[in-house]
């Protein structure tokens, strides 16, 4: 199990195998495997030609991994707390700042919004990058094959100021050590009113023994008031084949089973395999009905999922180039791997 970001490094380095050979081989791939059933944007994010600036999923791209599941970064909020404080779901970053502060003040004993802050690439890619890119801001520019920093723009600085203000006013007190599980468990325990993070993190907090189980809802978030749609960054749980595998056919048969339609529909309808990568599963009525207990979850996908997921390659082209050059510096490499 790996992530698409990682395979952009592992593939060109020769550590993993181009899977096109197996996918396109009718002798080794079941006709019912339905490669076309995968969400195009998610599938394409796992394919890159290794060329700086090369588009994901291009004809000459190598399929470094098979998507297995994904996460999109949006809002999961505690509806009970929102109702108590009389706060509406925020529609942009300014409203989010105000809503988080009001929730913190009016609900009492909680903080307004959970976002990650630990010293890791994983801090950048969820809420922060989803909102940042919604303002059409970039981290790097690619000009004549050379990368240059792009975060010094006035727009970028203005966004950063708002993001920092939000955390200082209404974020967790020890934000700088926060990673995904702290963001998630605080929401589940009723210590925070909302999170801007992975949707499946919010999903799992709405069930089990969590104190707030059944009280959470979900919403797409468009940080930029002038944007027409949200731009949630995605993480893709993926399966890749080691180039050093002694029996690649056997590896492929396992990968085929694990990413096949039967497994996907079983996981989605009988287990908690949410955010499946197959279009057929998202159309499955049993799956959609099951998600009724998670208000807004399906709507979040329907409203923006496909559109964004089809376009994900546009946001990542520059960053793959950067990722390919990950050996330059620690900070650069982390940032490159974070963006997708």
């Amino acid at each position: 199990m790996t992530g698409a970001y990682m395979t952009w490094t592992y593939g060109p380095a020769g550590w993993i195998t181009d899977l096109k050979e197996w996918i396109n081989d009718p002798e080794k791939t079941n006709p019912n495997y339905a490669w076309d059933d995968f969400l195009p944007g998610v599938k394409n994010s796992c394919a890159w030609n290794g060329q700086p600036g090369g588009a994901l999923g291009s004809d000459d791209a190598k399929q470094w991994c098979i998507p297995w599941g994904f996460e999109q970064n949006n809002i999961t909020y505690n509806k009970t707390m929102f109702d108590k404080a009389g706060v509406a779901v925020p529609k942009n970053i300014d409203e989010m700042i105000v809503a988080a502060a009001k929730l913190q003040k009016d609900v009492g004993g909680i903080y307004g919004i959970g976002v990650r802050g630990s010293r890791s690439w994983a801090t950048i890619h969820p809420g922060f990058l989803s909102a940042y890119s919604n303002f059409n801001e970039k981290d790097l520019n690619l000009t004549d094959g050379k990368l240059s920093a792009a975060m010094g723009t006035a727009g970028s600085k203005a966004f950063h100021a708002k993001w920092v203000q939000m955390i200082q006013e209404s974020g967790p007190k020890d934000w700088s050590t926060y990673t995904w599980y702290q963001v998630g468990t605080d929401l589940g325990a009723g210590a925070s009113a909302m999170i801007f993070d992975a949707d499946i993190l919010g999903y799992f907090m709405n069930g089990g023994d969590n104190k707030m189980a059944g009280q959470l809802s979900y919403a797409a978030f468009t940080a930029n008031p002038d944007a027409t749609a949200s731009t949630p960054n995605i993480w893709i749980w993926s399966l890749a084949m080691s180039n050093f595998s002694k029996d690649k056919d056997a590896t492929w048969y396992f990968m085929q089973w694990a990413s096949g339609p039967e497994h996907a529909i079983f996981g989605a309808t009988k287990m908690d395999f949410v955010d499946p990568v197959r279009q057929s599963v998202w159309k499955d009525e049993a799956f959609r009905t099951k998600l009724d207990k998670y208000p807004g979850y399906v709507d979040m996908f329907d409203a923006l999922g496909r559109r964004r997921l089809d376009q994900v390659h546009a946001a990542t082209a520059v960053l793959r180039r950067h990722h390919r050059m990950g050996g330059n510096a620690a900070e650069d490499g982390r940032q490159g791997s974070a963006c997708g």
Partner: protein
Amino acid sequence: MSLLYAGITVTLELLLGLGIALLLQRRSTVNNFISIMLLLPLMIAPALAALMWKLMTNPSFGILSYLASLIGLHDFRWASSPSTALLTVVLVDIWVYTPFIMILLLAGLRSLPTQPFEAAALDGVPRTFVFFRITLPMLTPYILTATLFRLLDSIQQFDIIYAMTQGGPGNTLTVFQVEAYLNFFQSTNVGRSAALMVILWAITYFLSNIFIKNWLRLQERARGEA
């Protein structure tokens, strides 16, 4: 940062470990029981100890944050603030590793010959004089051994710092091992990571040489050969 961390932790652990060992020097059932109980932190994996402390120092609900508020330290941010992050990880290190020094020095204290102390007692020598002129010099080889072990270990510290802060906030706690780990596993920057490890190896080799040479010299002196 690695040297600063190692310097602070080893010095404080040495002082505390020596103090506790002196208190528990006399053999008795109570002292033996206490020394065993004090060893418990050493039996916990440092990474788990760090996670435990991370919960205890959570500014919102941690017990230590609550206790800090009772003495007027409101909104104390512990590991999440650049100004107190080092102090916090040092505290965890002290909690975990002071027993190690304590047990080594306790063993050393209890194995010292009794004659010099009996002679000093007969002559009515003050206790501070006995400590600085008899106990401490005779205990020095044990102190050096304990210091060497702890210095080599703390200069390579990874688990406590990574589990608590991942090297942050910002670059506050990017000690050698954390920086090398992030270079290797997050940036796939194998060359830089390996170079950092070689530098760390050179530092530990240099320091351990100094300690071992001094340790051997003191051993010879203790045997009356120097």
